[in-house]
Structure formats: structure tokens, C-alpha cells
């Protein structure tokens, strides 16, 4: 039983005081931003990325991922009690969660959400532990051609599946790749796109780009649109919390199905927690004998999507950690945190740094247990936090972004870079271009080029080399099929309103 031995080793890593503290801080912050609408995990993770320079690789990743999956828990609290989704992935929870709260069963909904989230997360953690080693052994000996095709497939899938327009998604990846190439070319030593600025020779810093694209542009979009949330005062009594036997019976199967579909969808690049939760809700409603109960406080409609979005959140770590291919911008930041530590992402991470992989996995479990503890008894504290007005939140974030950018290298240039990328992100969002693919391109661009150039070198300039190997040819064919498919579905849906939310 290799897995059990590895897991035991992982727990000994994750149980060290510094890792435990990192995990606690991560899930605490995650819950906090999950509760606050208008403040997503991306902005906060990019804000904390500079801090991880001072942490060990394990602690850094444990904390950042805690923020990510913690926000999935927190988002559902406001969905249920206030009909205000804290995160996009918990918006479907409003449909039945809020009616339950109106019927005085908000506490039951919260408990069921937490249980469902926990089960969903555990399901995906087990999947991660069993699938990741298999995936690694599959891609470990990939040639440059195969890895090039795999990265390309990952990028195409991530940019076509989640957003409305395939062309806009892919072009944003390409723009990101160009930003990723800024700096000294490792192969030839030539400086590219640096325009004589010494600061650019090392390339653009991923933390700076992410803080601009997600932190600053979010502030630019939301500032001044004052949501008055000071009037909120709802408390949940202790007695409301206990679900009935009937609640458990109704929820058990939906939680199982939600976990399964969530994990499946989470592994795919681009299709993250939001799609998973909507899908799980649709499945329950369609397979129910009493679909008319949905939307009026059916507990299945809370349990299934919450299991699904947490399962998807955890499952999205599978391609990221095993293949080095992030499916979303959040996962790209995780890889960014690895690179900051000098670890090259890819299948060799698991082989060379088993402590990191298994420690992180064990921390997921610890983090999810902490989240259960944080969520149920402290629910009233989280609701109180909603009263923090935006006029305090936004300037504070802005200040920390500026300070974080400056203290990265004590360079004023980085502050201007943050501003530049903030404005870029703002205008891109105004023109409804997705921003997340840009970050994916930035992270994977240099790897894509490296494998491309080495492939040609090894194949003596034969461009067909990418199609001559069955594995790489298959990857490229799937990528092409995805593009065709998304173009067709876009034309077919031309009259329907487009989905504007973006998966982060």
C-alpha cells in the first residue's frame, strides 16, 4: 500500500506547526473572502503571493490552496442566509438555500452544506491521491513533442470551455504567452520585449501581473458602486442547526452524485466549480420524483451543488500538480508560487518533491476539518463581518497591493506595472474579454516555447513531428475538436444571453 505510506509521510509534513498555521490562516482568509461578495479568491491569493517568498514551498502552497477551497465554503453562507452569493460557484445554492432560510431552516441548510462540502472534498482528495501518481507515470517520459501538444491542449481547453467566446479566450492565451516571453531568452541570451529596461530582463513577475489583472481591476470595476450591507442582521440560533432524519435521507444520494460529477468536471481544464455546481443541481432536479419542490427549499438542491463545487475545487489540483498544467487562473497562481520557490512545475514535481505533494494533500484534509469547525459554530461571526463597508475594504486592498508590489524587489517599477496590468484588466473586462486565460498563457508560455524549440531541434526542423507521434497527434486533434465544438455551440446560442461570469 504505497498510498498509505505516502499519506502517512504527508501527514507528518502537514502536521508540523508552521504548516498547520499556514493551513489555518489560509482557510480562515478563504472563508472570510468567501463571505464577502465582490472580493474573490484570485485577488487575495495574488495579494499574498509576495509573502510566500518568505515561506517554505510546502507552507506557501498549503496557505494559498487553503484560501481557494476555504472560499468555496464561505461563499455558501451568504448564499443561504442573505440570497447573496459570496462566490460565483455558490450562486446556485441560493435557489434552494435561501428559501430554506426563510422557512427558518437556514441552520439546517448550513450544516448540510458543510457536510456536503466536506464529503465532496474528501472524495476528490482520494481521487487526487490515487490518480495523480498514475498520471505522472503516464507523462513522466513524455517527449518534447508530446509535452508541447499536452500544454497546447490544456490551454485550448481552459480558454474555450469556460467563457462565452472561443476566439476571445484563445487570443487572450496568446497575449499572455507574449507577456510570458518578456525578458532574457534562456536559449540564446537575447533580451526580448524589454525595451532597454533592466527591470524587465528577469521577465514579468507573476505576482505583479496577477495583482494588477485581478486585484486592481476588480477595485476599478467595483469602487463607488456602494452596496449597503450595514443593515444586515440575521442570527442563526443553535436549535435550528440540527437536520432531521428525513433531511439526511434526502441528502445522502445527492451528496454522492454531486461529489462524483464535481470531481469529474473539476479535473477538466476550464470547467471549474461554478459549472460543476450548476450541473449537479440540474442532475438532481431532473432525476427527482418531485421536481416541483426545487426552488422552494429542497435540501437536495443545496447538498448536491455544494458537494460538487468543493469536489471540483479539490479535483482541479489533479492536472495542476500531476502534469503542471493549470486549468484555471487560480491554479496558474499555484504554479506561480511553485516557480517563486524555484520549483519547475511538471510531472517531475511529484517525483522530486514527494514531501510537497503528499504534505499538501494531507493539508487538504486538515484544512477541510478546520473548515467544518470554523463554519458551524462561528457562522454568526462571519455574518457580522459582512458589515465591513466597502469604503474601508477597497482602499485597504489598494494599499496592500501597492505595498506588496513595491516590497517584492523594492522597485517602484513594479508598482507602475501593477497599475498597467490593472488598467489592462479593467479595459479587457469592459470589452468582455476573459482575463483568466491571459494568466494561463503567461505561466505556460515559456514552457510552450521551450518544448516547441527543442522538438524542432530534435526532429531536425520537421514541423510534422508533432503529428507523427500518436499521443501528441491525439492531443492536437482533441484541441482542434474543442475549438470546432465551441464555435458551433456559440453560433447555435447566438440569440441567448451570454454567460459573463468567469471561472477563477
Amino acid at each position, binding site marked *: 500500500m504505497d498510498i498509505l505510506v505516502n499519506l502517512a509521510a504527508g501527514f507528518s509534513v502537514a502536521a508540523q506547526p508552521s504548516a498547520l498555521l499556514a493551513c489555518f490562516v489560509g482557510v480562515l482568509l478563504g472563508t472570510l473572502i468567501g463571505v464577502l461578495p465582490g472580493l474573490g479568491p484570485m485577488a487575495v491569493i495574488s495579494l499574498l503571493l509576495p509573502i510566500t517568498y518568505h515561506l517554505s514551498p510546502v507552507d506557501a502552497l498549503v496557505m494559498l490552496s487553503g484560501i481557494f477551497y476555504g472560499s468555496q465554503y464561505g461563499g455558501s453562507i451568504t448564499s443561504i442566509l442573505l440570497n447573496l452569493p459570496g462566490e460565483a460557484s455558490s450562486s446556485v445554492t441560493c435557489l434552494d438555500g435561501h428559501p430554506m432560510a426563510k422557512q427558518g431552516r437556514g441552520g439546517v441548510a448550513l450544516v448540510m452544506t458543510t457536510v456536503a462540502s466536506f464529503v465532496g472534498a474528501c472524495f476528490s482528495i482520494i481521487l487526487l491521491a490515487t490518480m495523480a501518481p498514475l498520471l505522472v507515470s503516464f507523462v513522466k517520459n513524455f517527449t518534447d513533442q508530446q509535452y508541447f501538444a499536452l500544454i497546447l491542449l490544456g490551454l485550448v481547453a481552459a480558454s474555450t470551455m469556460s467563457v462565452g467566446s472561443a476566439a476571445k479566450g484563445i487570443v487572450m492565451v496568446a497575449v499572455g504567452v507574449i507577456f510570458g516571453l518578456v525578458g532574457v531568452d534562456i536559449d540564446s541570451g537575447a533580451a526580448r520585449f524589454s525595451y532597454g529596461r533592466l527591470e524587465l530582463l528577469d521577465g514579468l513577475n507573476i505576482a505583479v501581473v496577477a495583482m494588477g489583472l485581478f486585484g486592481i481591476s476588480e477595485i476599478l470595476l467595483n469602487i463607488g458602486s456602494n452596496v449597503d450591507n450595514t443593515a444586515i442582521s440575521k442570527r442563526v440560533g443553535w436549535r435550528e442547526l440540527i437536520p432531521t432524519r428525513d433531511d439526511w435521507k434526502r441528502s445522502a444520494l445527492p451528496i454522492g452524485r454531486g461529489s462524483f460529477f464535481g470531481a469529474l468536471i473539476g479535473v477538466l481544464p476550464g470547467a471549474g466549480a461554478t459549472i460543476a455546481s450548476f450541473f449537479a443541481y440540474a442532475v438532481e432536479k431532473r432525476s427527482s420524483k418531485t421536481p416541483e419542490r426545487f426552488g422552494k427549499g429542497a435540501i437536495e438542491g443545496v447538498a448536491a451543488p455544494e458537494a460538487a463545487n468543493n469536489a471540483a475545487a479539490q479535483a482541479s489540483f489533479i492536472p495542476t500538480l500531476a502534469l503542471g498544467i493549470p486549468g484555471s487562473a487560480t491554479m496558474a497562481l499555484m504554479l506561480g508560487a511553485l516557480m517563486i520557490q524555484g520549483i519547475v512545475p511538471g510531472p517531475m514535481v511529484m517525483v522530486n518533491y514527494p514531501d510537497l505533494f503528499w504534505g499538501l494533500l494531507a493539508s487538504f484534509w486538515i484544512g477541510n476539518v478546520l473548515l467544518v469547525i470554523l463554519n458551524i459554530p462561528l457562522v454568526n461571526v462571519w455574518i457580522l463581518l459582512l458589515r465591513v463597508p466597502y469604503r474601508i475594504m477597497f482602499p485597504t486592498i489598494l494599499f496592500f497591493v501597492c*505595498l506588496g508590489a513595491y516590497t517584492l524587489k523594492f522597485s517602484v517599477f513594479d508598482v507602475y506595472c501593477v497599475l498597467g496590468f490593472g488598467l489592462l484588466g479593467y479595459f479587457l473586462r469592459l470589452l468582455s474579454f476573459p482575463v483568466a486565460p491571459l494568466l494561463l498563457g503567461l505561466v505556460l508560455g515559456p514552457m510552450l516555447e521551450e518544448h516547441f*524549440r527543442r522538438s524542432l531541434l530534435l526532429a531536425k526542423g520537421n514541423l510534422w513531428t508533432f503529428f507523427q507521434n500518436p499521443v501528441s497527434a491525439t492531443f492536437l486533434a482533441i484541441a482542434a475538436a474543442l475549438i470546432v465544438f465551441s464555435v458551433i455551440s456559440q453560433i447555435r446560442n447566438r440569440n441567448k444571453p451570454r454567460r459573463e461570469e468567469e471561472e477563477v
Partner: protein
Amino acid sequence: MKAFRINPQELIGGLALLGFGGAVMAQSSQYAFGTINRPGPGAFPFGVGAVICLLAIPVLLEGRINKSELAMPQLDRILPIILGIVAFALLITTLGLVAATFAVVLLAALAERPVRLPTATILATGLAVFAVVVFIVLLKLRLKAFW
């Protein structure tokens, strides 16, 4: 037959992409291309620039499908933020952390409606004290509190 009309959102986006892709291609052509056996530093970015230009075409055409309105930037909201960041950048190395904190927080407060400077002043004071204590006194970062 309907007149061929491109949505302004996609028109601006598509043209900007054409410009960006063209600039990338022009810039890359100044780097060594290498040979097909051994591509130089210019080859890959040149290709990506070409892809960006090519993809600008479907983006432009998408204006026929997309009917969403063009959102205008709200200058009175974003200008204070931009000025705040610039002021921070200018002040952090000259007048120090405290002045930079006040500048960014107070300027950002001008973006809120209604503007409430007393609240912002209290917030700025709190953040400045926090930053000086944590980053200068405790973490000993290379920052100066005052000039």
C-alpha cells in the same frame, strides 16, 4: 438584408488585437529567427503575434452575434485610483511609507460616493500605524517611515 454592422465592443477589441499582434510581429522580426532546425529567439513570438492577428478576425466578426452594450469607463471613479497608485509610487522612495499610505487611501476615497474624507483619514492613520509597526519595526523591511 441587414447592414453589416460590427458591435463597437468587438470593433475596439479586434482593432486593439490587430495593433498588438502587429507590434509583436514587428518587434520579433528584430530578433534572430534562426533556422527551422534551430529556431532563434524571434521565431516563436513572431508566430504567436501572427496568431493574435489572425484571431482578431473572428473577434471582429463576433460583433455580429454579440449584442451587448459597450460599457464606458467611468473616469471619475478610476482616475482617483490611478492617481493614488502613482502617488504611492512617487512618495514611497521620497517622503516615506506614511505619506505614501495617506496619499493612496485619501485619493482612493475620492472614488467613493459620497466622498467621506474623515473616515478615510481614520483608515489611513490606522493602516499607516499598522504598516510601520509590522513592516518596519517587526519585519525590518527596507522601508522608511518618514523622509
